[in-house]
């Protein structure tokens, strides 16, 4: 495995590459098809480049472990707003998740509904394109419309347009308090209706999930302690027609619940493939029913549906009448809903422009 220590070294490897490259950060997910190409690890490009807590900005090399990023931010009472998932338990893998890997897959957790996705927090990138050139785009300021936003294009591109070497992200303060309202015994349809009512209220819900197997619907509130208490009361009253709610306030308990949701822990030790489906929230229950899921978890107010299905079962045909998309997260290799033909044609041309020799992660992104 090649493991460059500098951006220049990495650029040299790409420029001189004669065979496809499998790019990896911490190797916790395996975004490429195994066996196809030489492994190229970005883990050697590690460390914080610049951190300005007063400007809510962090510039960090792509191979920096997520845990290190978290620790650096926590020391200043800040965090990544988009709450990225840790895939290790669900996928049964080890390795060290990196910030570059998270960005390359646009990994966003329960707070997506309030704080946006990973791509929304990304302010700037440096990457090495398929010609071995170092490209910069964006910057480290929160508002920047200077030229095209290749930062968004790199987010979620799974290394197929370039190898991320550095990124600038917007961070947010860790709030003083958090609480979860828990409602019990709702059907999935009622739960989505309750979550829509909550997310349509002014009470700033920062996570809304329904776990049918546990029979619980969760609504998270974060902020100053007095504000969280006030909003929990108002939200409970607003949702009274759906049934009573209890409030979980113990920090450890709130954190454990959110980790369980974020990392899809409920599916971790069970056999079968895991897919994530993105639909409009009110279509969530219909999507779960359509694919005959053995188990489902609704996040993002119903708009993100995690489903557990028998191994090898392709759920995509069953979703054909529902707007949105599905991606296999655990199973025999990556699999995703196809893009409409004109977009697929644009994608192929874009890839050819950025990676004319077809070096990067063959097999990823279809």
């Amino acid at each position, binding site marked *: 495995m090649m493991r460059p220590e500098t951006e220049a070294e990495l650029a040299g490897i790409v420029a001189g590459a004669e065979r496809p490259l499998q790019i990896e950060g911490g190797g916790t997910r395996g975004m490429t098809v195994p066996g196809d190409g030489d492994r190229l690890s970005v883990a050697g490009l590690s460390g914080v480049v610049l951190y300005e807590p007063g400007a809510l900005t962090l510039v960090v090399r792509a191979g920096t472990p997520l845990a290190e990023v978290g620790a650096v931010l926590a020391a200043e009472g800040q965090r990544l707003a988009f709450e990225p998932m840790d895939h290790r338990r669900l996928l049964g893998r080890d390795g060290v998740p990196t910030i570059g890997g998270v960005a390359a897959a646009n990994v966003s957790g329960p707070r997506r509904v309030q704080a946006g996705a990973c*791509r929304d927090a990304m302010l700037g990138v440096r990457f090495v394109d398929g010609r071995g050139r170092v490209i910069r785009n964006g910057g480290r*300021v929160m508002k*920047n419309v200077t030229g095209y936003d290749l930062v968004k294009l790199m*987010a979620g591109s799974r290394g197929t347009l370039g190898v991320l070497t550095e990124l600038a992200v917007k961070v947010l303060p860790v709030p003083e308090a958090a609480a979860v309202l828990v409602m019990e015994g709702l059907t999935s349809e009622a739960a989505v209706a309750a979550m829509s009512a909550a997310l349509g209220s002014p009470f700033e819900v920062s996570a809304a999930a329904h776990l049918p197997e546990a029979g619980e619907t969760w609504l998270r509130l974060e902020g100053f302690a007095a*504000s969280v208490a006030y909003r929990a009361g108002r939200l409970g009253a607003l949702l009274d027609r759906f049934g009573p709610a209890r409030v979980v306030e113990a920090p450890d308990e709130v954190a454990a619940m959110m980790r369980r949701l974020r990392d899809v822990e409920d599916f971790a030790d069970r056999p079968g493939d895991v897919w994530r489906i993105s639909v409009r*929230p009110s279509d969530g229950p219909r999507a779960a029913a359509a694919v005959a899921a053995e188990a489902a978890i609704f996040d993002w107010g119903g708009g993100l549906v995690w489903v557990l299905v028998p191994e090898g079962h392709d759920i995509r045909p069953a979703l054909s009448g529902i707007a949105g998309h599905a991606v296999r997260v655990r199973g025999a290799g990556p699999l995703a809903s196809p893009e409409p033909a004109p977009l697929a044609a*644009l994608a192929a041309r874009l890839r050819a*422009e950025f990676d004319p020799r077809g070096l990067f992660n063959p097999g990823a992104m279809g």
Partner: protein
Amino acid sequence: MQMPAPDARVMAKKDHVLRRLMAVLPEDAVIHDPTATRAYECDALTAYRCPPLAAVLPASTAEVAAVLKICHEERVPVVPRGSGTSLAGGALPTADSVILGVARLNEVLEVDYPNRFIRVQAGRTNLSVTGAVEGDGWFYAPDPSSQLACAIAGNIGMNSGGAHCLKYGVTTNNLLGVTLVLMDGTVVEIGGAHLDAVGYDWLGVICGSEGQLGVVTEATLRILPKPEGARPVLMGFDCSERAGACVADIIRAGVLPVAIEFMDRPCIAATEAFAGAGYPDCEALLIVEVEGSPAEIDDQLALIKRIAMAHDPVELRESGSAEESARIWLGRKSAFGAMGQLGDYMCLDGTIPVSALPDVLRRIGELSAEAGLRVANVFHAGDGNMHPLILFDANAPGDLERCEALGAEILKLCVDAGGCLTGEHGVGVEKRDLMGVQYRPEDLDAQMRVKDVFDPGWLLNPAKVFPLEVSAGRRAG
């Protein structure tokens, strides 16, 4: 500022092109009379003007597709236009181009509160999107100053911001889907009411691409429930360093104000003379607004005032009523009008890291003195998006050129401080020739490759964003 010479081949077949356009559009949707096309000769950057070959006003996605297909076949450049409020010359035509105005695409197509989105035709104005949902307690967050007039299509083209993006983000953070027509007439649906993409983040790159990748005809936008209430506090400081440090401390303390606005002494003086908002006589003024219930607002403002006290404010005024809130905002909202009373002005919008604020302000003061032109600063301090206003006299020979030169120096200063040329207005033609200050040739090449993919013939708004000498080979192809 140079624009490419019109293509003689296109000019020669004007009548042929017009006939083809009139065959696919209603009679009143093709504007070609030389007196009528004057209405489209510029946008809000009025220093540069050129009437187009024609202007067309399609009223449906199908009509937009038909127009683009014809222009593609005839190799006629197309300049998309929202409401023409661009401060960067994004909708400035060339004599051989067709202006494609989306003003007739102004319907609300779908409002869905349980799923928190609205779908509109892209010519609809920004404020009327909020207008369609505010009666039910909702709003569309991005709020550029021109929101009464500016179109969603232009907001998407420029990735527009506004005063409230510190909390709610800019257009790209609130855009869920678009109907996009490519230059060859292909209609593409991207995104929708669901979140995030399965493939590349097309929405992300289309937003802010200044009408160079395609024409947006419909948009699905995220809407948000209105907060229970909002209240501002006004603070005056005797130097900009203190105001800047106060901003950083507020942000670090974990409060997320919905807006932090900054005005310097020249701007305060001008707005006082114009609007009489009762602002204190000081070097720097901050308006910080927070949202929530009355008690939540009390708590947040108490914390903010505690932080401000540590920076020796000369004035600290919390609003106690809706009238007082309006009065605090009055001066800020009149700032551009007030500056207009003093003469012609050029408005820049470079962004800097908040930490660089005092240094950059001091340096702008020095550059202003050297150039002999007055500069007033009013800006969104929470996100570092500056708005230096350079005063000049358009009738004085050489003044515009001196103003442009000073503007270029200020923008270079922003980039040197770790910032960028434009935070929300876009590059257009105004900052086109400065792109090399921020980006190296290979960085610009990577961006132009994206245009190569969407518009291989470089017919869509081709003379914008990239310096002409940098894009020359592609435009000729």
